[in-house]
C-alpha cells in the first residue's frame, strides 16, 4: 500500500522533487530493500528536460535510483559528489558534448558503465562510442524494456567486477 502511495504522489507531482534530483539518486520505493538486480545509482545526462525527467521517473518505477542533470559540466560535478554506477548520456548537448563526457568519465572513473542514447544514429558515432568504452549505444526513441535490460546487464557487469 505504501508503495502504491509513493507511486501516486510521484506521478501526480513529479516536479516537486526536481530541485533535489540533482543531489541524490532517488528511488520511489525507499521503504523496501533495494532490488539486487538493478542499479540503484543511475545518472541521466540529457539537455532534453521533458524527456530525461520522464525517463528517470519510469526507471524509478522500476526500482532503480536515478539522478538527472542537463549538461556535461553538472554531470562531472555530480560524479565528484557521488559516483553513479551507470550513466545514460545523450550525444548532442550544449557545452561538453556526450562524446567528450564519455571520454572523461572513462578516464577518471572507468568503473562507471555508460549507455549512450541519441537521436543521431550514424554507425560512425556508434563505433566511436564503443571504442571509447561505452557499454551500449541506443537509438532514440528507445523502448523502456530494452533500456531496462541493458541497465540490468550493465549492473551485472559491475557486480561481476567487484
Amino acid at each position, binding site marked *: 500500500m505504501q508503495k*502504491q502511495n509513493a507511486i501516486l504522489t510521484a506521478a501526480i507531482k513529479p516536479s516537486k522533487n526536481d530541485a533535489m534530483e540533482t543531489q541524490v539518486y532517488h528511488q520511489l520505493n525507499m521503504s523496501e530493500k533495494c532490488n539486487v538486480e538493478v542499479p540503484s545509482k543511475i545518472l541521466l545526462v540529457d539537455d532534453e528536460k521533458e524527456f530525461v525527467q520522464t525517463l528517470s521517473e519510469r526507471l524509478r518505477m522500476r526500482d532503480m535510483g536515478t539522478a538527472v542533470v542537463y549538461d556535461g559540466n553538472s554531470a562531472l560535478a555530480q560524479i565528484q559528489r557521488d559516483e553513479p554506477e551507470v550513466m545514460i548520456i545523450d550525444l548532442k548537448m550544449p557545452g561538453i558534448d556526450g562524446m567528450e563526457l564519455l571520454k572523461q568519465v572513462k578516464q577518471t572513473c572507468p568503473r562507471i558503465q555508460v549507455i549512450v542514447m541519441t537521436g543521431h544514429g550514424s554507425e560512425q558515432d556508434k563505433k566511436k562510442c564503443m571504442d571509447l568504452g561505452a557499454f551500449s549505444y541506443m537509438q532514440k526513441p528507445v523502448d523502456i524494456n530494452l533500456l531496462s535490460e541493458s541497465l540490468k546487464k550493465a549492473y551485472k557487469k559491475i557486480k561481476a567486477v567487484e
Partner: protein
Amino acid sequence: MKQLQKLKPASWDHRDSASNHLNTGFNFARKWKLIVLFTSFMALLPLFVMSLVEFGLTHRTIEDEVKSSISKLLNAAIVSISFSKDPGKTAMDYITLINSGEDNDIFVVNEDGTLLTTSFYYGNTGTPNAVNTSLFKEKAGIEKDLTPDKKPVMAGYARIPDSSLFFVLAKSEKGLIDLWFKPRFKLIGYLAVSIVLILLSIMGMATYLVGRIHSADRKRSEALHHAEHEKKLASIGRLASGVAHEINNPLAIINQKTGLIMDLFTLREDFSSDKRLISLAKDVLDTVKRCSTITQRLLDFARHMEPSIEPVDIWEVVKQVLAFLEKEADRRRITISIDNKDTIPNFECDKGSLQQIFLNLIENAFTAMEDGGQLSISIRLKKRDQISIMVSDNGRGIADEDIDKIFEPFYSSKNDHWGSGLGLSIIYGLIKEIGGDITVKSRLGKGSCFTVILPLKNSEASDGTK
C-alpha cells in the same frame, strides 16, 4: 525525295524538344539555313562574276566582229557602186547577193526614211518613214536601233555616193547572244552541274556540322540536367537527415510520456481495468515506432558510415535476396529469369548495401507487376572494370514526368503507409557511395528496367565518407 530528306538535319524536327525540354535556346534550323546560304553565296559568287565578265568580254568581241563585218560589207558595196557604170543595178545585185533575211538584212532607204527595197525588219518597198532618219548622223556608221516590231538590231549604214540614198545593213542582236551562247552550251552545262554539286556538298557539310553541334549540345545539357538532379538529391539527403535528427528528439519525449502513462495505468487498479485507455496508449507507442522507422530509414538514406567492405560474390547476394522473396513470388506466380552467362569475379563491396539494392529493386518490381508477371535479372561484365546489373519487369511502368522524382525520398505511388517512398532514395545513396550509378528506362504500361553500374575496383568509393 528520300535522298533530299537525308540532307535535312535531324535537328530540324528536333527543334521543339531541343528548345523546350533542354532549354538550349538555339534554333538549329535557322543556323543551318544561315550556314547554307552564306557558304553557297560565297562559293557561287566568283563563279557568277567570272561568267559575267567573260560574257561581257565575248559579247564585245563579237559585237566588234559583227560591226567590222557590217562595215566591210557596206564599204565593199559603196566602193563597187561608185566605180560601177550602172550603180542602180550593182546595188540591186549586191542586195540580192547579201540579203539573207534575218542575219543580213540589207536594203536601201532614202533620206526621208522611205524604203526603196524590201527589208526583213523594217517593211516592204515604199513604206514611208520606216527607218528613223536621225540614225544617219554621218556618211557611214553603225548604230543600235529598234525595228518597228521592237526588235533590237545592229544597223550599219552608208551613204551611196552622189545621192541622198543610204545602204542599211541590219543584224538582229539576238543572233549575237546566240553566237556567244552556242559554243558555250557545254560549258554552261558543266557550270550548272558543278553548281548543283557545290550546293549539295555545302548542304551535306552544314547538315553534318549542325548535327554534331546539336548532339554535343544535347549531351551537354543532359549532363547538366543529370548533375542538377544529383545535387538536388544530395541536398535532399542532408535535409532529410537533419529532419530525422530533429524529429527523433520529440519522438523520444512522446515515447517516454506515453510509456509513463502506460506504466501508471498498469500499476493502478482503477485505471488498469480500463482496457480502452491502455490500448489507446499502445496505439500512440506503435505510431511512435512507425515514425522512428521512417526517421531511421531517412538516416540510412543520408548515412555516412564506413561500410564493411569484403570480397563478395554478387550471385550469392542475389540468391540470398531471392530466397527471401521466394514465397511471395510463388504466391503471385511471378516468374524470375536470371541471365548469368557472364562470370562475375568476386569484388570488394559492402554486402549489406548490395542486399539492400537488390531487395528494393525486386520489391519495387513485384509491386509494379500484376500476378503472373515476369521479372528478369541480369548481371553483365562491362569493359573498364564495371558490372551492370539490370532488373527489369513487365509491370505498369513509370510515366515520363515521374521518372525524375522516383529517387527522391517520400515519392511513392504506394497506397499503404509503411515507410513508403524511401526505398529508391536509400539505394541511390548506397550506389553513389560505392561509386556507381543507377538509371532507369521505363514505358508506361509496358514495364521498367533499372540499370545499376558498379565499379569492380572500389577505388574512390570511400571518398564521400571523411
